[in-house]
């Protein structure tokens, strides 16, 4: 594993190029180009604000912001995992012809997701101010949460991208799974709304504490509860280990399976 890490460092330029390629390609050919990276979350926010303030009245103060704060990190998680699933299979041509540490492919998807997430935060902060919500010192704990989430996302992407080579149905299964997962994560509803008999589902959900942390930082303006994050830390590191080991074991036959 140490060898893989050294090699990944050696290939950092490739990782960087893969990420810029992803970012550039997404809005390739559109008039507004890279601006869409900001426009997308902004317009999303506008729609939610209109819908939840006029059509579906929900008895939560600044509900659209509550939703937005949870939705952005969730999208970082779910899109990274979903896109990375096919990252090995779709780059078969490269894998069969050139040697490079294969980990680069899913990792670059995760990093791209991270960059997009960070850019969307640039929209989030002015939006909070616009809705006259306070930004407190809790924001300084944000990097810790983001790093935690990144570790978890990396673990997941490594795991699913390598498994998908041998079991291509995974891509479709994950699509459905993510939708279900979204609804057992308190993003569109606060934890208080979850009936007690389903509370265990949220408790088991490793993504939920991360979402709480983001909500604490941005929506409630308090420092996240560290106890629950301890478990997330253990889970994230474990998932990264499992992801790397699985990937390391499965990557030997990538070129033949593609």
């Amino acid at each position, binding site marked *: 594993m140490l060898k893989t890490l050294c090699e990944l460092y050696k290939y*950092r*330029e490739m990782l*960087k190029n893969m990420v810029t390629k992803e970012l550039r390609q997404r809005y*390739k050919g559109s008039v507004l180009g890279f601006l869409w990276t900001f426009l997308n979350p902004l317009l999303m926010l506008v729609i939610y604000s209109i819908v939840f303030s006029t059509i579906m009245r929900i008895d939560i103060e600044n509900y659209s912001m509550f939703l937005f704060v949870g939705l952005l990190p969730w999208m970082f998680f779910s899109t990274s995992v979903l896109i990375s699933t096919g990252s090995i299979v779709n780059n078969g041509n*490269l894998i069969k*012809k*050139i040697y490079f540490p294969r980990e680069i492919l899913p990792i670059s998807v995760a990093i791209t997701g991270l960059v997009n997430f960070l850019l969307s935060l640039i929209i989030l902060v002015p939006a909070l101010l616009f809705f006259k919500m306070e930004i407190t010192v809790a924001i300084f704990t944000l990097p810790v949460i983001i790093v935690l989430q990144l570790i978890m996302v990396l673990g997941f992407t490594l795991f699913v991208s390598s498994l998908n080579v041998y079991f291509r149905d995974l891509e479709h299964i994950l699509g459905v799974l993510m939708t279900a997962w979204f609804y057992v994560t308190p993003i569109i509803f606060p934890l208080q709304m979850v009936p007690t008999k389903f509370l265990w589902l949220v408790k088991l959900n490793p993504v939920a504490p991360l979402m709480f942390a983001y909500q604490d930082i941005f929506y409630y303006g308090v420092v996240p509860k560290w106890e629950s994050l301890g478990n997330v830390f253990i889970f994230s590191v474990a998932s990264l280990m499992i992801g790397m080991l699985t990937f390391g074991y499965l990557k030997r*036959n990538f*070129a*033949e399976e593609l």
Partner: protein
Amino acid sequence: MTVIEVKNVWKKFRLYHEKRPSLKEIILFKGRGKWEDFWVLKDINLKIEKGTTVGLIGQNGSGKSTLLKLLTNIIYPDKGQLNIKGRVSSLLELGAGFHPDFTGRENIYYNSSVFGLTKKEIDKRVDEIIEFSELEEFIDNPVRSYSSGMYMRLAFATAINVDPDILLIDEVLAVGDANFQKKCLRKINEFRKQGKTIVFVSHDHNVVAKLCNYAVWLDQGEIKASGGSKGVIDSYLAHMAEQEEIRLAGEHKQREENDVIGEVVDNERVARTKEEVNSEQESQGQSPNRWGTREIEITDVKLLDGKSIERHVFDSGEHVTIQIRYKVNKGFGNPVFGIGIFRDDGICCYGTNTEIDNLLIKDLKDQGAVLFKVDLNLTEGHFLLNVAVHDEDGYMYDYQSSRYSFVVNSKLSEVGICKLPHQWIIS
């Protein structure tokens, strides 16, 4: 110093008889094997010293490319070990990592990074790469607007400038125009002089002979010979000639059998439609490979070597006898026998007959043979032999085109059709 060590390496491929099994099939036919294991490489042992240029030769499917992929670390052996020291760059396929929408320059950066270079290292090389690719004017255009030649040039230039300790090349030199090919070869030669190790797969034994000082001949997954490139290539060519001989002999046998069947059909047709006697000639005239009245018939044609053994593959300059067996069916005038040697692209290399050579044949036995002795001064290639017998006025008894095919091999890479007797005098 040994830089590449291959120890008892085995590699198998799993050949599925059908597509990947679906879930239904997995459940229904569980335990029923639907694949076959195929050993592509069997117990390969190889040690390559630093600074050697190694040529891997062998027929299609002999495992050359698989071995190269193993060395590149793209696939892994099932058994055995590979030890490789130093930075490896492989040119398995040019431009594999190119992105069509990026400009040439962007692709240089992108592709070099895929080869493991850092930004600083690429900055240092980029000018050299552009110069080598001869694409100065187009370097800031997107690669999708390039011609395939330009694309390949850029790809080769990028790949070769990675500056590896070990370079693995798979048949990629077949691209580009002659000038660029020469340039590639020159670059590879430069590498050799810098004491880098090169492993090189090629069908072109001339290139291997020119570039490599060591050669490995793979045959059906096994190393059949390895050592100095000249010796290995010679025994490889000898083996190939043997194979070709067997193949051509088989083809001939097949053809002769077909001819017999054809004749039987012909005879039947003649018997059925008696009044159309004339059409016999016509129908024979229509046959593209054989026509004539058959008053004298050519029954058999053979090429014999110096030991009077029939062969289909000869070395350039070898002494050969063309043996034409005939049979007389009817009275005749003064017969003339002729031969014509054509290259497989239709160019006539040489043709003559007994009349041109002032040989008057007044009498023939009922059955016999005409021998044509010749030094086969042809360059390398595939050739066809036409034979004919007619009377002095050109009235055709029997004409058979492409009656016999044969191959000439040459160890020299001269060009042209035939070898003119020559000598050089330098003063």
